[in-house]
Every structure is written in C-alpha cells, then in structure tokens.
C-alpha cells in the first residue's frame, strides 16, 4: 500500500477502501447503533477521533516499538483514547452518551482501528497516518450516518430526531413525514438489509464507472486518465 497524497488517502477511506463498505470492519457498532442519524453521527465522530489519534500515536512511536510488543501497545493506546473519548462524551454530551451506551467503550473492539494501526500507521509517516485516520474515520462515520438516516426515515418516518443530544437545548423529535414507518428498518434485521443495500449501491456505482471509463478510454485513446 502506498502512502500517497492527502487527497488520495481521503478518497481511499471515504470510498475505495471504505472500512464499512469494502473491508466490512466494525460491523457490530455499525449495525447496532444506526437506528437514527444522530446516533450514527455520534458514534461516527467518536470513531473518527479515536482512529485519527491512534494512527498519529502509533506512527509517532513506530521507531521504538519492536515487533513483539506492538499488539499490546496498540491495545494500550486505543484503550486509553477510547476511555478519554468516553469521559469527554459523558461530560459534554451526556444524553448522547446514554443513547449510545456500551458502544462508546466498545470502540476499543472496532477492528477497523487496530487494522489501520497495523496495516498503515506502523509503516508510514505521522502526516500520512493522520490523513489515513481522517479518511478511514470519515468513511466509517459517513456510512454510519447514511445507514442511520436511512433506517430512521424508513423506520420512524423522521429525520434528525434527538438532534438536541448534540446541540443541547430543548428535546427535539425531528422532522416528521408520516405517523409511523416500516418498523422492520429499526429492528436488527433492518440493519443488515440497510448495510446490504449500501454495499450493493457502492458496487453498482463502481461498476457503472468502470464501464463508462472503459468506453471513453477505447473511444479517445491517449487522453489523460483521472
């Protein structure tokens, strides 16, 4: 894997190697908390911060860390960062923390984070590792938000419900479109269906792109390729 530029790292995390859509990592929190957009945003942001910081720390310490002790050190770093995030959420976003519950401390077990530490941050510069953390974290967060918004829309026919958990202020039930939604979307099977749809959509878009790129290439040979 090449380190590449900042933009390329972002593209890789957001789309090409998206941790949720392509690597299918961290599915447990992804499926469990995405009942609303706000929940998805909360866990997505927490994961993004932990992933970026853990990538930075792992990369910064990579010269001193021997192969034999790298895993305990990743565990230490990631667990400390997650504990800090949990405390910060409890202090500044108490209702969101209650809503996400156990899934904030469980970020520790998100394989996407230790995978980035092992595969990328331990072999690349701090700058590239931070870019990778932001890209991968944002990719994961976007997927959480997309699935959260989809399940919320279909399942309870609202959007942005409980936004007050992030912004503070009065209890906000979200913009409502109908009296009730399709309950299935909120239930656990709905999470699997939504993820399957998201993966299918990504594969479809990629396929369409490949086909159209193939035809333009054969039509205009020599034109620079993106």
């Amino acid at each position, binding site marked *: 894997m090449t380190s590449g530029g900042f933009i390329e790292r972002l593209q890789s995390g957001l789309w090409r190697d998206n941790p949720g859509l392509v690597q299918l990592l961290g599915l447990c929190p992804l499926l469990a908390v995405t009942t609303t957009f706000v929940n998805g945003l909360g866990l997505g942001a927490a994961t993004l911060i932990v992933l970026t910081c853990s990538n930075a720390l792992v990369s910064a*310490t990579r010269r*001193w*860390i*021997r192969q*034999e*002790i790298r895993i*305990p*050190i990743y565990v*230490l*770093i990631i*667990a*400390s*960062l997650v*504990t*800090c995030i949990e*405390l*910060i959420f*409890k*202090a*500044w976003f*108490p209702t969101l923390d*209650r809503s996400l519950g156990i899934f904030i401390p469980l970020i520790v077990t998100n394989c996407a984070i230790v995978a980035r530490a092992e595969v990328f941050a331990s072999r690349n510069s701090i700058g590239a590792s931070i870019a990778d953390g932001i890209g991968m974290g944002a990719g994961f967060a976007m997927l959480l938000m997309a699935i959260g918004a989809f399940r919320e829309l279909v399942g309870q026919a609202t959007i942005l419900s409980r936004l007050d958990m992030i912004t503070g202020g009065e209890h906000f039930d979200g913009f409502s479109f109908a009296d009730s939604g399709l*309950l299935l979307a*909120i*239930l656990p099977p709905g999470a699997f269906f939504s993820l399957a749809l998201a993966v299918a959509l990504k594969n479809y878009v990629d396929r369409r792109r490949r086909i159209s790129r193939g035809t333009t290439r054969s039509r205009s040979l020599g034109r620079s390729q993106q």
Partner: protein
Amino acid sequence: MSDRTVIKTGLTLAAIAAICTALVAATYQLTEERIAANQKALLEKALQPALAGVFYDSSVSESRLVVQPPHELPGNDAAIVYRVFAEQAPVAALFAVTARDGFSGPIRILVGIGFDGTVTGVRILEHRETPGLGDKIESSRTDWIFQFDGRSLGDPKVTAWAIRDDGGDFDQLTGASVTPRAVVHAIRDTLLYFDSHRDEIFSLEASGEGE
C-alpha cells in the same frame, strides 16, 4: 532476544503505559466535575415527571434510601427510594423498582407515591421490550403510563390492579399484554409496600448520594 533487548522492550512498554495512564488521568481530572454535575442534573430531571403536582423544596437526589433485599418490593435486587419533603414534612416518595416479569429483560420503573398513598406519576427508566409493541409503555411514545396518575390502592381495589385481560381495571397495549401486566403488578406491589412501610421509609437516614 538477548537479555538486554528484553529489558529495553519491557521499559518501552512501561513508558508507553505510563504515558497512556497520564493521558487518561488528565482527561478524568478535566471532566470529573462536569460528569458529576451532569449525573445529578440528569437524576433530578428524571425523577421530576413522577412528581406531577407535588410541591416540594428538598433536593430529591440527596434523600436517597437503599432498600436491601429481601424486601417485598418488585424485583430481587436493591430498590432505591427517594424521599420528598416540603418544609421538613414528608410529601411523597419515589421508588425505583425492577419488574422481572417483562417480555425481555428487567423493566426499571419509577413509581411516585404521595404521602396519602395516591400515585403521583409513573415513568419507565429502562427496558428492553420490543420496539413498536412493548415500548409503548414509554411516556414519549404513548400516554399509556399516565392512566395510573391519581390512582391508589382503594381506586381500584387491590384485586382490580391488573390489565383488562386479567379482569382488572387498566388498559393493556395492542399486541402486548406481558409488558403492561408486569408494569401494573409492579406498581401495585410498590403501593402495597408503601402502605405497610410508610413511617419507616420517611424516618430512616439517607444512604448518601449515588447513581
């Protein structure tokens, strides 16, 4: 690995562990006060709905009393009672009890009872009932939980503290009868306990803040 590398590796591990611990300790120091304040505010806010129409001037969360099992309250774990006073005179008690006979997992219920034995409000604190069916016991979903306001042991009589399916006086929910049955029975048992232990509840010393 030679002995030297083993020691060096161990020291690296220890140094990084120390740095990580310092990071967590610093964050804890920074957030400790806010978290404690949040928890207290959250508790006071959570307790308030079960005290509809009750005038009080005491800090509810500071009057906490823990009733250790065995007790006659619903659930077999320690139950928490908050006493509410107005000018030092007892006006109401809040019981945080657990119904064990719900559809999936324990249901934590907050039952507010006025000094005269009437229900001042009931709220569900925690549950894992089926979304869309059993979760209608939540005050934010339906007004089912409000039907207990102002009722007491004589209204209806003890044997009628049940859902209609069981010949009682209280509505059940469409598609769910196990959950409402558990809640109604928990409220009834709490009222019975309050009836027989009222003076004892208000005379005991608080067991300190918490939760």
